[in-house]
Each structure stands twice: as structure tokens, then as C-alpha cells.
């Protein structure tokens, strides 16, 4: 930033203002959503690296001698090893589809798909931060880290996201930490084959996670009729029909077919798949994500 460029400074200030405007509502909404789920610092209910006592177990020959808890062993004839609960933090990658198609909503009564996805992602991030996990976005902008500062960073990025053309928005598998978790929030109206490749590649790196298809009610019901020209959200392509109502049956068939493929992909990668409609409350989706991410240890 050039200090001599007042115009640039003004632009920055404006952007900052816009960011400050957008961030609190997003954070507030996400917090409100996350507040309903009580997490807190809790162990993994298995032995591992941690601070809390987990259990005593008899020492096995392969155990190092220094791990023997002599105080406990003195009370009996056997050697015991004091194990602590595993408290190592998990890395979770959140991936929110930035493609233009996410900026759609068919009615003022429910939010855009992208907005819903960002709120869900941030709410998950809040939960993760509360749980002390490491979290980040599934690209190089915010690698997984723990802590409150990371939450601010993630929130800032999510609030400021500009839509990308469908083709450019893709899961960056290279940045995924192996063995981490991933949450993919998308409408999956992009290239399904590429998406399959990426998910399988991530799975190959030991990443497990969940796919959540966020759809608008209009995308599920196809409530159109009459002579209509459909246009991509990015304006890249058009499709004209004389009687939109006549396409409904086949559209719904195709949508189901695509979902079947996603379901199959999830099964193949060992991931979870669900659908979330934007006219439904986000809480159900958040609970589902929480369960899936927490349970898929």
C-alpha cells in the first residue's frame, strides 16, 4: 500500500469498513448457532498424549522403562504404566464452495446457499475452536491452527469471499494435512467428476470427512413454467425452453441421479454425505456436522 495514494487508502478503509460490517453479523450468527451445542474441553476417551489421567495398565515388554509409574507399581507385584487421556488436537479443513452458483436464492425468505454455507462453516469453526482443535480452510489462505486468532482469520476470509467461476472453485487437496478431517459445503453443481477425483485423492491422504450438499428449494422442486431462458449464475451458459414445466420431471430425475453419485462417492471414500435445504433451519445441519466430525475419529 502506497502511503501517498489517498485513493488507495480510502479504498482500503472502505474495504475494512465493509469487512467490519460483514464480520460481526456472520460471527454473531455463527456464535448463536454454535451456542446451542455444548462442547467444552473434553478428552478423546482413549489413551494418548495429554494431561489428564486416563488409566493404569500393566506394563508390557515393549514399554519403555521410564514410563512405568513406580508409585502405583510399588503397591503390587506388577508394573503399571500410567496412561493419560489422549488430548492431541485434530486438524479440520473447512471447504466452502466459492463458485457463483452458491450466490443463489429463489426467495427472500431464505438466505443464499453461499451465506448459509459460510455460516455453517464458521459455526463449525467456533465449535472447533472451543474444543481446542486445529482448524483451517482447505486452501493455502488459512492452514489449520488452533486458537482464537485463527477463528478471526477464518471469519475474515469467509466474510470477504468473492465468488469464483464454477470451474476455478475446487478443493485444494495438496494443502490438506494428512489424517485430518475435511468438511465440504457445496451445491455440487460443478464438475462432478473433478469433485470425485479430489475427494478420492483426499481420502488417499488419509483425510476423512463429510460432504454437505446445500440446495435451494427451487433447485429441488423446479417450480418453473412457461417459456423460459435459464442462465448460469456467472452468465456463462444459457438454456432456453418453451415450457419449463415440461422439464420438471426430468430435472428431478437428474438431480436424484447426481445425488446417487455423490452418495456412492462418499461411501467409496469413507466419507459422509447429506443434503441441506436453505429453507430449513441450519441447526439440524450443524448438529449433523458436529456428530459426523466428532464421531469419525
Amino acid at each position, binding site marked *: 500500500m502506497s502511503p501517498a495514494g489517498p485513493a488507495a487508502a480510502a479504498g482500503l478503509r472502505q474495504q475494512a469498513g465493509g469487512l467490519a460490517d460483514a464480520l460481526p453479523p456472520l460471527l454473531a450468527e455463527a456464535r448463536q448457532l454454535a451456542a446451542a451445542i455444548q462442547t467444552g474441553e473434553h478428552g478423546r476417551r482413549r489413551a494418548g498424549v495429554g494431561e489428564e489421567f486416563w488409566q493404569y495398565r500393566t506394563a508390557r515388554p515393549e514399554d519403555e522403562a521410564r514410563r512405568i509409574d513406580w508409585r502405583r507399581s510399588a503397591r503390587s507385584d506388577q508394573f503399571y504404566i500410567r496412561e493419560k487421556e489422549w488430548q492431541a488436537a485434530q486438524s479440520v479443513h473447512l471447504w466452502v464452495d466459492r463458485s457463483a452458483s452458491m450466490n443463489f436464492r429463489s426467495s427472500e425468505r431464505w438466505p443464499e446457499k453461499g451465506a448459509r454455507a459460510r455460516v455453517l462453516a464458521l459455526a463449525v469453526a467456533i465449535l472447533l475452536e472451543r474444543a481446542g482443535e486445529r482448524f483451517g480452510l482447505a486452501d493455502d489462505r488459512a492452514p489449520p491452527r488452533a486458537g482464537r486468532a485463527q477463528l478471526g482469520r477464518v471469519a475474515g476470509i469467509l466474510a470477504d469471499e468473492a465468488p469464483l467461476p464454477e470451474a476455478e472453485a475446487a478443493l485444494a487437496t495438496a494443502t490438506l494435512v494428512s489424517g485430518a478431517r475435511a468438511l465440504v459445503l457445496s451445491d455440487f453443481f460443478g464438475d462432478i467428476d473433478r469433485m470425485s477425483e479430489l475427494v478420492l485423492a483426499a481420502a488417499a491422504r488419509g483425510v476423512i470427512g463429510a460432504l454437505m450438499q446445500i440446495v435451494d428449494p427451487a433447485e429441488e422442486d423446479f417450480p418453473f413454467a412457461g417459456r423460459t431462458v435459464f442462465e*448460469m449464475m456467472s452468465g456463462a451458459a444459457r438454456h432456453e425452453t418453451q415450457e419449463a414445466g415440461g*422439464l420438471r420431471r426430468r430435472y428431478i430425475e*437428474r438431480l436424484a441421479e447426481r445425488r446417487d453419485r455423490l452418495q456412492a462417492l462418499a461411501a467409496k471414500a469413507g466419507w459422509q454425505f447429506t443434503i441441506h435445504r436453505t429453507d430449513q433451519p441450519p441447526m439440524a445441519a450443524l448438529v449433523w456436522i458436529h456428530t459426523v466430525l466428532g464421531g469419525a475419529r
Partner: protein
Amino acid sequence: MTLFGGMIGFTTPWLLWALAALPVIWILLRIVPPAPILRRFPGIVLLFGLKDEDSAAARTPPLLLLIRLALIAAAILAFAGPVLNPAAKTEGRGPFLLVADASWADAADWSARRARLGAALAEARRAGRAVAFLNLADPAPLDLTFSDGAALEARLAALDPMAWEPGAERMGDMATALPAGRFDTLWLSDGLDREGKKGLATALVARGTLQVIESPRGARALGEMRLLDGKVTAKLFHPLPGGPPQAVVIAKGLDPAGIERELARTPVALTPGEAIEEVSFDLPSELRNRVTRLEIEGEASAGAVLLADDALKRRKVALIASGTPQEGLELLSPLHYLRKALAPNVDLVEGTLADALPAAPEVIVMADVARLPGEDADRLAEWVEEGGLLVRFAGPRLAAAVGLDGMRDPLLPVTLRPGGRSVGGTMSWGAPRTVAPFAEGSPFAGLTVPDEVKVTAQVLAEPSPDLADKVLASLDDGTPLVTRAALGDGQVVLFHVTANAEWSGLPLSGLYVSMLDRLAISSQPNRPAEKDMTGTVWQASRLMDAYGALAPAEDIGGVPGARLAGNIPAPDMPPGLYQSDERSFALNVLAPGRTLGPARWPAGTVIEGLDRAEERPLKGWVLSLAVLLMLADVLATLILTGRLKGRLGAPRRVPVALFVAVVGGAALLGLMGGTARAAETDEARLLEAAGGMVLGHVVTGDPRVDEMAQAGLSGLSAILTQRTSVEPGAPMAVDLERDDLSVFTFLYWPISLNQPAPSVEAYRKLNRFLQTGGMILFDTRDADLAGGGGQTPEGRRLQELAALLDIPPLEVMPKDHVLTRSFYLLQDFPGRHTSRAIWVEAAPPDAEQAEGVPFRNLNDGVSPVVIGGNDWASAWAMDEYGNPAYPVGRGLAGDRQREIAYRFGINLVMYVLTGNYKSDQVHVPALLERLGQ
């Protein structure tokens, strides 16, 4: 160009050719489907490659196509300028002649006819044509000069129909005296055929187009009143079809108090196709004698009125003979011939004088009664002096009673000489005497004397200076045969021969009956023949105008009987009642034997109905239709393209829902309207009226007028409540027949033309109402009472309605009337109109202005009626929000006028409630002064 039998025409018909382009538009519309909607939709990826199943949807849907075609057609029709009931444009721009029959047959709907005539004149003037007007019934000399018509407008506005029909001779004159050159004619015909009409029409057709305007309703008329077997019969003519299917004929006459009342009514079914219906009244003789006229209810024309004269009146005649009837000598009985001659035409009363007098006969005939007992003679003389007609016949007893020095009797017209005379008998010289021709001036003048009438004996009159004046008929030697003298209001007639054939052949001849008739003893049921009336002169007593109203005759000279007997009314012999001596003769519009038929017109005549609807441009309506279709098209397009969907969840149900809403709403409204008319009991209304002060208005039956009166009184009540201590309740509609008027103090009575006259009972109630302090404000609503003559239809109707009301003499409200200062000080009394002439009860003639007092001390009583024509209710009328309901005047002046109208209303109500209180107030200064002393 016209459609539907001339009902619809077009101002620019060539535009209709554009309709031929509709098929092309059809094709164009068909291949141009509605524009698509552009939708951004992420799910489009799923749509790629999908083909439309139905390719026909690419064309315009048929419903849309139809709507658009109708839209275009409506637009074309609209710009072609459709006109409902287009006036037949009279081609040519030459001179224009207006002809009007203006006979009695026009009177029933004269205002419409006059308006039509005025419209024709205005149209001709607009077109710049020279106009002339010809009133066929008007006796004025012919003047057929074409002018620019400016002078005609005033003449037409004042044109009234005549009670007679245009004469054949006059129409013949006109046919020959038509101006040279070609001209077009518009004939406002009364629809009746008459001699000379076709000739004139033919002459007019020869000069140019003849357009005839006739009311399809046609005139109805009454004629040929007779007395048959005790029934009054008449004929009702309805020559033209198209009128109402029923008529009601009313017999009217004077009641014992001398007020004209309806005596009987009979409905007559008018068979279409029949031109004549028989009307018959079966009345008791007492009632029948009172009938003065028959009229068709609701038909204000002279033809619908049939005046009755002697022809109808069966007189009561008492026959009195001396002595007891002698058995077996019937043909010698002095009464036999009288009875035979009189019985068919009169009601006979026989018996002694004591029996006959209480029956109140009009005529007493005494055959050969010499002397009466003193008491009887006095009573008979009294009866004669009160107007009775005593006819005496001589005979042996009378001759014997004449003493040696003659006989003087107040009940004899002449003094009789002693000793009668006998000629041509076996014991006398000379031949029997014949009757001399009747002298001019005698009531028998014009009767021919048959040769076989011979007189063989007679009583003789004492010669005296006045004998010649008393003689009505004499023998060929100059001796009197019939003498007459007045006695009081009545008269005494003496036949110097016997009533039987003993002394003369007179009773055997027809002359006997004629002479009795002439003496008004027996009016024949048939009209007097011409010969019976020849030589008499008749004086008009009451004349009928074209509307059938009778008025005292003025400026009409005597009419010779022969002409009157012709029964054809003429300008110098209008229909009405004529009198000559004792007899009266009713000259009615229709002569006996005259039948009415529809007018026949020569070929080439354009005939139009009078009530042809006004020319009405339809362009606006058709354009509105086009706009509506356009809206429908927009809606249909929205629905078909699915654009309505995003806005309203269920697009396909929108039209259905709209339809259901509209129909359901309408049905609901109808239902509510039906149940809202909850019947309120009369009693509750009257209780409310009696409980406080309530203004009432008379129900006229015309819903618009009633509504206006109600609104007007509401407004006045509101203003009264606002400004004065009078706080009236909601005004009430008063049904004169049903409601008790005693609870009201003030009635507003707007005059509506089609208001039926109240019944006799209602009049009685009204009179009681007026006598007991109630007031009626009559409002003719025509602003034209200033003329005072009731020239408007409303004015005439008011006169008819108020005829039976007990109304004192009226005068135009004087400047010092109490009404001018009962609350506000007022000079004018405007309503919606500003006529100054308001009529109130006349001040007593002895009212004088007291010294030092600005007003006369008058109107001790409150005027029971106030009559005007300023349409006050309209000025008072308020809607429910208190805003004026009808416009009054213009701008500020209009507001001022409305304010003054309210002030007049307040003054009026104050006047009703406080009477002459304000008038008394003028004495207050004097009283105060006296108190101070």
C-alpha cells in the same frame, strides 16, 4: 353504415375494412409466442441437453390468440366510431319544414314531442338550413316563409297542443299553398289518420324527403257515451298498438257537497289488434245522474276525457193527475201519453203531489189539475221558485175551473179567459186548427210541424201586453198553444191542450216527444239530432284544453246549434260544455261514429318512433373493452409464461380464485342487501315521529325524487340541530295512504309527474292535517312557477293533486311575511333554483300597516301550504358525511345560495313550530314601553 336494423352506426365506416386484416394478424400472432423470461438458475447444469417435449408450445396458446384478436377487433371497431341509435342523417342542405299536428292526441306526451321538435330545429339550424314551421291545428293564417329559425325557437318552446284536430280543409289548403322549390319535411305526427292528412303528405313527399315522427304508443281516446239499459257505456279507442295492455276508465262526478270525486272505475283490457273496446259502468241511478265525465286514468289528453251532458242525465219526472184513475179507460187517461213518451228516457215518479215532492224531481208534469189544496199549492210554488220546472196540461177540469171572470193562478203562466174554445167539432164552425211554425227564439224553433196535428179544443189566454213574450208555440190563428213564465228560479209551462188525444192530435205525433225534449223534460239518450238543434244558439260554459282540463269559457261567441250538432270541434268551437236554455250539450273531441285509425303515409316516408333513444357514441365503451381485453391479455400472458408464479404461490388458481372472490362477493352483497331490508313496523315509526319533531316527505313513488327528498330533509335536520334548539329526528318517508299524518308537523311534497293521486281517504287525512296546524311545502322542482299558470308538466300535476285539498286563497309571499324573519332575516328563498315566487296563504284584505311598525299585522293564522319550485331538497341534501350531495350554483355564489336555502329551511320549520310568534314580536317595543311606565 348501420348494423342491427339501424341500431348501431359508424362515423368512419371505412375503418372497418381493417377488420379484413384480422386473418393476417391471426397468423402473425400464432407464430410469435410470448417473450421468454430470463432466469438465473444454478440447476441449469442439470438441464443441459434436455429437449422440450411439446414443440407446439412454441406457438401462441389459442386462448391468448383469441383475446388478442378480440382486442384488435375492438380497437378497430372503436376507432370506426360506433354510435348507438344513430340519427338518420337528413341528406341535403335545402330548406327544412317542420310540421306538427299539435292536436289533443299529442297532449299525453307533449313535452317529449316538443323536445323532439326542438331538437330537430336545433339540428337544422346547426346545419345552417332555412327552417319553417307549420302548426296544423293552429287556426292562424298560413305563413310558410323559410327563415334562419331564430324566431321559431321561442315559438316552439311555448307551443301547446290544441284540443281539436287539424281540419281537412286547412290541410287541403296547405297542400296547395306549399312554397315553391324543393324542401325536406319533418312531420311530428300524432299518429292518427284523418281526412286530408294523406293528401298533404303526398304533396310534401313530392317536394323532398318526408320524415315522420310518431309515438308508437299512440293516443287513446273515449267516445260515444250512451245510456243503455241503465248502464253508461262508452267506447275506448286505441288505434295504435304498443301502449300498455290495460287502461282504467274513471267516472267522475260531483258529490252531494259539490266536490268532484271519482264515482266509479273500471279496468279495460286492450286487446292488441282491436282498435275499439267497450267500456261500461253499471251505476245506481242516483250515482249515474252525477256523472259529469269519464276519463282514462293517467292519460292527460282531451281525447281521454268524455264530458257528459243531458244525454246522460236521466231526470226524475213526477207525473200528477187529478182524481182517481178510471178503470178501463187507459187510453183516455191524461197520463198515458206522457208516460209512454217519457218512460224510456226519464225516471218517473207517480202519485199525489205530497208523495212526489219529497222525491225531489227535476220536473213535475200535471195533467189537467185545476186547483191544488192551499198547502200543496204553496209547496209546489216554493219548489218551482227553487228552480223546478212545472209543466201543466189543460183539460176539462182546468177549463171548468176557469170562472166567468177568468183564472189567475201563480202556477199558470198566463191568465186564462173564461170559456175555452172548440173548433172543428160537430157543434162548432170551422175546421180544426193546425200548429203554426215555431217562431225564431222559441225553444221549439227548428222543429217541423206535421200536418196531421190538429187542435180541436184549447183553453185561451187573456190578452195582455206581455202575452207575446210568454208564447212558445201558437196555432195558425195566433192563439197560444204553449206558454211559459218564469217563477222564481224556475218556470211554469202550460200546454193549452190536453195531455191525451182528447183535444188535439199532438200527443199522437212525434212532435209531442220532441217538444217535451226541448223543454228538457226528457233528454234523449242519443245525441240530439241536428234537426233538433237547428235554429238554437249555444253558449260555451266550460271549455276543455288539450290536456283534458276544464276551464271557464272566455271569448267564445255563441255557436249555432246546427254546427254544434255536427260534433266536430274547431278552433272557434273548442270541445267543452255548451248551454242553451235549460239544456246543456257536451262537445267532445270525438264525434259519434268517428273511429280512429293509424295514419297512413305515402311510400318513401321515413317513419321514426318518438321515444327513439338518444344518439349515443359507443367509442368510449368499445375502447374500454379493448383496454379490458388488453389487461386480460396481460394477465393471461403472465399466467401462461409463469411470471405470476414467483409473486403469488399458486398461479394456476389465481383466475379461479379471482372469479370465486368476485362471484362470492357479489352473492354475499346481494344476500346482505336482501336481509338488510328488515321490515320496520309502522307503529315504531309513528311512535318515533310522535315522540319528537320529525320532518316528513311525501312518497311520490319516483325512487330518485324520494331519495333526494330524504337526503334533503336529513341535511335540513342536521343544520337545524346545529344552529337552533329544534333537534329533529331522522326524517321519514310518509305514505299518504297508510301513515297517520297527525304525528307530523311538516311535510315536504316534491311533485313527481307519475305520482298517483291520493285516494279520497288520503285527501281527507291531508285536509285534517292542514286544518290542525300542519304545513305542506309543495315543490314543483321546475323553477317555473313564477309564470303562475302551471305551464310546466309539474305545475299542472300540482294543480291536479292539490285540487281536492282545502287550500285557502294564495298570493306570492309578500315582503313582510313572517317567513322572512322567523329566524333569519331573508329576502330570497332559493333552493337549487332561485325563483322568487313562493306562494303562501293570502293576507286578509283588511290587514293594514300599524303606525310605527315596519310590518303589517297579518297572517294571524299560519299558512297551511307553501308552494314553490326551487327544488329545495336538492340544495339541502347531504350525504352521510355531511357534504352537499348535489351541486348548487357555481363557486362561492353557489355556497352562498346553499346557505340561504338552509336559512329558508330553518325559517320554514321555525314558522311551522312557532306560528305567528315573530309577527307578535313587533309589539314587544310597545309592550316594553307600557311596562316601563
